[in-house]
């Protein structure tokens, strides 16, 4: 798996688009630095699905206290957190 920031962001974006589609929303224009929970595109259940995928796809088990807006609030932050957790930042 590539730990290139742009590649990680793209993978997260694609998953986000896929989840939003099931909710009848189009997330293709969501900026990578835009706060996902505030976008109005995805609800809590959708975010849960995104987090479950994130943990599994990047092999990063998350503790409850890690699930904050500061760590995972945007596509860019989520990608940065992958790299940080993998110790390659």
């Amino acid at each position, binding site marked *: 798996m590539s730990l290139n920031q742009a590649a990680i962001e793209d993978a997260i974006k694609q998953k986000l688009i896929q989840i939003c589609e099931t*909710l009848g929303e189009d997330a293709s224009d969501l900026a990578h630095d835009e706060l996902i929970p505030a976008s109005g595109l995805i*609800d*809590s259940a959708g*975010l*849960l699905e995104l987090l479950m995928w994130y943990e599994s796809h990047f092999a990063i088990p998350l503790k409850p206290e890690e699930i904050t807006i500061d760590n995972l609030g945007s596509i860019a932050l989520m990608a940065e957190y992958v790299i940080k957790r993998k110790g390659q930042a």
Partner: protein
Amino acid sequence: MAVSIHAPRINNNDDQVKLIALDVAIGQKVDRGAVIGQVETDKAVVDIEAPAEGYVIGLQAEVDTMVEVGSILVWLGESADEVVPAAAAVETRAGQASGAPTAKARLLLKRHGLTADQVPAAGERLTAEDVEHYVAGKGGRTAQASGSPVATRIDRLPDVPGALRPLRPDERGMVNTVSWSRDFAVPGYIELEYDPQPWDAYAKDYADRHRLMLSPLLSLMAWRLVELARETPALNATHVGEQRYEYGEINLGFTVQAGETLYLTVLRNADTLDESGFVNAQGDIQRRAAGHRLVPAELQGATISFSSMARWKVSRHIPILPPHTALMVAHAVSADGRHVLGATYDHRVLNGFQVVNTLRKLSKPAVPDRKKENTQ
């Protein structure tokens, strides 16, 4: 005077338990507190203890059969030659006449409103198979031999070709839920529209203060429901026999959609938490539900519940009451932005006024009221 030993209740959702051991014999002396047998459900095994010293004078159930919670398993007498009380004698094993029904057959007879003399026995005793055969012959349904007392199956396969498929655990849970609702509850439904702004503002403030990734809105509303249940015990109750059974703890059921699976997660003893603890615990259980990582205890024993279908933008959903509960709140947000709080309630336990009153209180956070109260 003879003393009866009854099948114990292991958990609120099981009205039947399986008798897996009965370690006494007619005439045997037992001490008070002695373990005389064991019963089990899918979740636990529990010892049955003698409530008093005495001699076994009657055995009323068979090992490896399902028995009703509260039914008599064993009679103890003050002496070995004491007779079982007359009303029970006809059901005792010692006094069985030829053709007398087995314990399981008695359960099925009761469930179908039949008497033993209506059903022909194939052998010496009337068995569950005899009853099922009889009911099937009438074109009706029969009870599952080892399932919930309210779970039923269609006895005859349709004429159209197809294949039977075993149910997943969550699907079996759904069958039990809707069957309990059909067979026992008297459901009513009430809803009201509400202004979402106070709740949205409260949840946003909470999320900002705690730097939350996931919106705490629904968890905060569920917490408000727990608070209301603490104030009004009838909300956290069920109906048993001719009485209301008010729970001693609040186990909050909360629906979580995980792929195609709908879980009713259960946060036990929710009333012992504070708001922050509740939101954190809800977040944790929801995340594990999404990953299908719940343990059985987190999927049973709900005493009151909250469900939201806001994500699906439906204008209304009328949930089925989970077994042995009297209230399930239903939250919805329609495509045109109407916010609705509804509730399915067991009319045996709650009346419409109580439900409307609860929904009105639930339609806004408690904090503004408390501030107002503090300034008065």
